[in-house]
């Protein structure tokens, strides 16, 4: 097909770095639920490149309309309340990308994710990044960075956490961390795979693959 014909399809290079990394972790042909799926970019990508049965939930109605208009199966819903409707084990993967810090009850949402899905893929901006720490230490004010880019009174991110916090939560909840990685400012995988302490200092975003232990 000529490039000028038809609607523009999402391609991986236009995707947010965490979405691209998440897509790489998902086995072809899987059943996937993307929570906070926005306009359905990841869903469309997973269907087109991996033949997945991918669906989404999104709280912003304008995004839901856009997603459906792109042909992505997305429903309006709230991660905090609407995951309880799904039956146990309905999905192979349940994805929560950059949304964990914005939900009311992150622990309950994670529990639901691992009830309805075999595996959970969770990405979040790391509040332990050195720039965040430095700003708070130096200015004594809530940090503002390219990732944490809204003032404290406007931010939807009511539950920020660090990579170390997240490891601790997984341990206390009894989740097995099957894979994890941190991404630096340039969107490159950080090399501190063996050193969570360094990842927590230099990683801008984190991505975890969890499984019920």
């Amino acid at each position, binding site marked *: 097909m000529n490039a000028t014909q*038809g609607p523009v399809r999402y391609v991986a290079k236009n995707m947010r770095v965490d979405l691209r990394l998440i897509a790489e972790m998902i086995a072809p042909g899987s059943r996937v639920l993307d929570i906070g799926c926005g306009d359905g970019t990841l869903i469309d990508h997973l269907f087109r490149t991996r033949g997945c*049965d991918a*669906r989404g939930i999104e709280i912003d*109605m304008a995004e*839901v*309309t856009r*997603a*459906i*208009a*792109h*042909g*992505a*199966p*997305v*429903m*309006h*819903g709230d991660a905090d309340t*609407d995951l309880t*409707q*799904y*039956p146990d084990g*309905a999905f192979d993967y349940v994805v929560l990308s950059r949304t964990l810090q914005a939900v009311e009850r992150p622990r309950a949402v994670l529990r639901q994710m691992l009830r309805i899905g075999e595996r959970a893929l969770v990405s979040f901006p790391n509040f332990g990044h050195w720039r965040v720490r430095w700003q708070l230490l130096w200015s004594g004010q809530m940090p503002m960075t390219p990732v944490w880019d809204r003032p404290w009174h406007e931010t939807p991110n009511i539950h920020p956490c660090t990579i170390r916090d997240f490891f601790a939560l997984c341990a206390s909840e009894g989740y097995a961390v099957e894979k994890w990685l941190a991404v630096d400012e340039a969107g490159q995988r950080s090399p501190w795979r063996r050193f969570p302490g360094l990842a927590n200092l230099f990683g801008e975003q984190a991505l975890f693959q969890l499984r019920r232990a």
Partner: protein
Amino acid sequence: MDQPNFANINHSRVSFDDGLALDCGVTLRRLDVAFRTYGSLNAEHSNAVLVCHALTGDQYLAERHPVTGKDGWWQSVVGPGLPIDTDRFFVICANVLGGCMGSTGPCSPRDDTDLAEPPPWGTDFPPITIRDMVRAQKRLIDHLGIARLLAVVGGSIGGMQVLEWAVTYPEAVFAAVPIACAAKHSAQNIAFNEVGRQALYGDPDWHGGRYWETGRVPARGLAVARMVAHITYLSEQALMRKFGRRLRGTQAESPFQDVFEVESYLRHQGGSFVRRFDANSYLTITRAVDWFDLAAEYDGDLAAAFRGTRTRFCIISFSSDWLFPTEENRAIARALNQAAANVSFVEIATDKGHDAFLLDEPDFHRALAGFLAGCAEHAGLAE
């Protein structure tokens, strides 16, 4: 008012001489299904979209109406390049069982007598259900040689038919788009229907439902029924925006005249309705809608009705619809989630009330077009 002549129009239809067994236990000996189609059926018979019409709609969805002379009721949705694209899809719409635009209904001659010229069924027409309507449509689809519909789409009680299609014939429905509807009719909605029915019974021309014998129709009663119903199709904001408290020209001197513009609007709506609709059909269909409760056969568990479904669903509601509010639509989406079905659900922001599904709502049209295009792709339909 004298009998309108809509019954004499030659609608295109198909007759099934083996009849139709109804939920009530009665078997209609003969079944007529009047229908219209738009676009063309492809060689694989895989591009058919069935549209189910609402209470007072009919099969003339995208062409000049033979009675009113007005545009089809979904002229802005069905056509070349429109959301239900007739360049791609073969669109079918059938007059519902119990209707008065050519399908078997209370205006049809009775089939349970040996008279040479049997009278119309009238109020003796057997009580029907939404599922009976869907069974009649299935006969048409079989007759057209279509094993699986790419999509079944409908708003309001058309949406109820869509849900019934997905539950009764899941293998024949690749995608379902129930719009502005509910899985059961609420007590409030039954109450509104009852006001309409009582208006009919109270009309002196009602004549116990055998009004054809007098050559007159219960026009006032039917018009009042329509006026009440029409209020429920709009929203408070839409009425304020359209009419506000504006008066009709000079102050009326008698309380029996129209004073406010909204009154004359409603009277006009009521008056034009009686020229295209039969009172007994109105009773038959509103009763069928009142009976509708999809979960009733599943001990009230709506999810059980959908268990194992492979149909792709797209539920669409409108924010100012108080006849079938978003919460009723969301309940359908939730039940589908419980059944692990593939479901999209969106509420379109509009102040136009329930009628929004008939009006120019760009977000609604985009969502509908996108969903159908996505379904066509998943179903492997050539572009």
